[in-house]
């Protein structure tokens, strides 16, 4: 039905409202500040446990940022998007929206794109400011790695936002949607790796090998981690996972594509569910 006759103006109207709502409520500013402050603290005090204070290297800063962002961005994205549709439904404004000359797919896509723009904007602005502050420490390779880190952070956000918006379609009310969003965060951010490790240990290491690496692609948070760690030769050795990761899978383009797929698939599922 709708996908073929998508009206961009309708999508842009919905997306614009979502984006400007987040700008006006200072949501974008607050999140950007959180990113900036955390990143600067990590950059300058990340080595404090080893008795070192002050900036060490971009690679170690990125490595520390990755461990932080992997918790923070999924949480922020899920909180941002979990009530996109169910919130309108519960507030009672969904019927009026759908009575407009707009298809359900256009509404869903507009919501997603508007929220995605707000999240991407905060991420780029927050971490971008850090890059400006650290400019004197950055060489070309550091800049490239930091650029990849920022881009992958945006992609990680988009992937979890896609999950969040699909939660907002499937859940029957806001309470359930928030529960489901938290459950997803627990599963992908906390449980997934533990389960994989458990399987490895139970299997006595014999079950390892190539397919284990492929299983990591099933979790956008792991894809994000591998994408950043694999690109950092200096710290790669610190992470056992990254070293067992097969070279052909460590291709950053491939991993970015996997993250992109993670932002498309849940949304497509949501669109299918929401069509009537």
């Amino acid at each position, binding site marked *: 039905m709708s996908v073929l006759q998508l009206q961009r*103006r309708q999508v842009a109207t919905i997306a614009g409202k979502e984006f400007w709502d987040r700008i006006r409520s200072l949501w974008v500013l607050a999140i950007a500040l959180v990113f900036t402050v955390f990143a600067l603290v990590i950059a300058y005090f990340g080595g404090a446990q080893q008795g070192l204070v002050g900036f060490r290297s971009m690679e170690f800063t990125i490595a520390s940022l990755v461990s932080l962002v992997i918790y923070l961005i999924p949480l922020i994205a899920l909180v941002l998007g979990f009530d996109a549709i169910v919130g309108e439904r519960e507030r009672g404004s969904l019927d009026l929206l759908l009575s407009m000359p707009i298809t359900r797919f256009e509404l869903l896509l507009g919501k997603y794109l508007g929220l995605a723009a707000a999240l991407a904007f905060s991420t780029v602005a927050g971490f971008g400011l850090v890059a400006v502050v650290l400019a004197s420490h950055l060489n070309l390779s550091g800049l490239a790695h930091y650029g990849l880190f920022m881009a992958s952070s945006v992609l990680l956000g988009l992937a979890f936002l896609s999950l969040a918006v699909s939660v907002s379609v499937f859940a029957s009310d806001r309470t359930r949607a928030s529960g489901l969003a938290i459950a997803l965060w627990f599963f992908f951010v906390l449980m997934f790796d533990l389960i994989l490790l458990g399987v490895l240990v139970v299997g006595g290491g014999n079950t390892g090998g190539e397919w284990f690496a492929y299983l990591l692609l099933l979790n956008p948070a792991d894809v994000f981690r591998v994408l950043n760690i694999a690109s950092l030769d200096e710290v790669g050795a610190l992470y056992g996972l990254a070293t067992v990761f097969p070279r052909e899978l460590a291709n950053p383009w491939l991993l970015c594509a996997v993250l992109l797929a993670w932002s498309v698939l849940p949304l497509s599922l949501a669109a299918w569910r929401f069509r009537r």
Partner: protein
Amino acid sequence: MAKSTPAVADRAAPRALVEVRDASKHYGAVHALDGVTLDIAPGEVFGLIGHNGAGKSTLFKMMMGLIAPSRGEILIDGVAVTGDDFREVRRRIGYLPENVVFYDNLNALETLHFFAKLKGVSHSDNRALLERVGLGAAATRRIREYSKGMRQRLGFAQALLGEPRLLFLDEPTNGLDPDGIREFYGILAELRAAGATIVLTSHILAEIQQRVDRLAIIAAGKLRAVGALSALRSEADLPLWFDVDCEAAARPAVRAALASVTVTVHDAPAGLRVECARQHKLAVLAVLGSQAAALRDFHVREASLEDLFFGLSS
């Protein structure tokens, strides 16, 4: 009593603007709407009457293509509301949902701007539109600060975006104060004069009975009657009665005179209550006229649409 399958008085020489054919909505065993068929002609003001939960809003949502019928179909301007072509038709329809909800963080102008853009209609005259519904002074106030009545006025303004030729107004005076109700019907009269087709619902019958061309009575998901008020009245043949005000001493004489017509006479505090069938009204009047000297006053009481509604709905 009216028949349960209403004889739709089809004045439709041109094609009906809204055609509802056997529309039904079942949620499991619950029949929210059951086999509703009706036509609404261009330029007509059509009232849909029923208790809360009778199925009015379900029918409205179905007419806007918001919920798919379990059975039957609805055409507006010849276009099925469930089809892809209905998107263009929606541009020309104004819809005020029951208990309309807007975004608290926007003001009235921003709200109209947003919906005008979605609707793809001009938004240059939104301020005039807000003046028209009495929100001119509150145009830049956040909806968060709006009262229920103000939200309803804004909902009406939203429905008027793009000067629609067809309006669906679900409980439009809900939450309005008496001034608001009067102003609302003033605007409705202007729209009607300009040739718009208006469908509105209410559970307050007295409020809309003088303002609609035809009405439909809906109860428990079924259409009980459709037609003009006068047609429904005569079809239902509800009783009428005379409250006769006379001296106690004059009562026997009046009673005796009334014995010549088919009536039921009761004693009432101020005199007599005389009940009769509609066809005997003039005969009773003639008798009372002949007894004029014995009477202080009398009033003719007829069943209202309210009585009719409750009679048909129960």
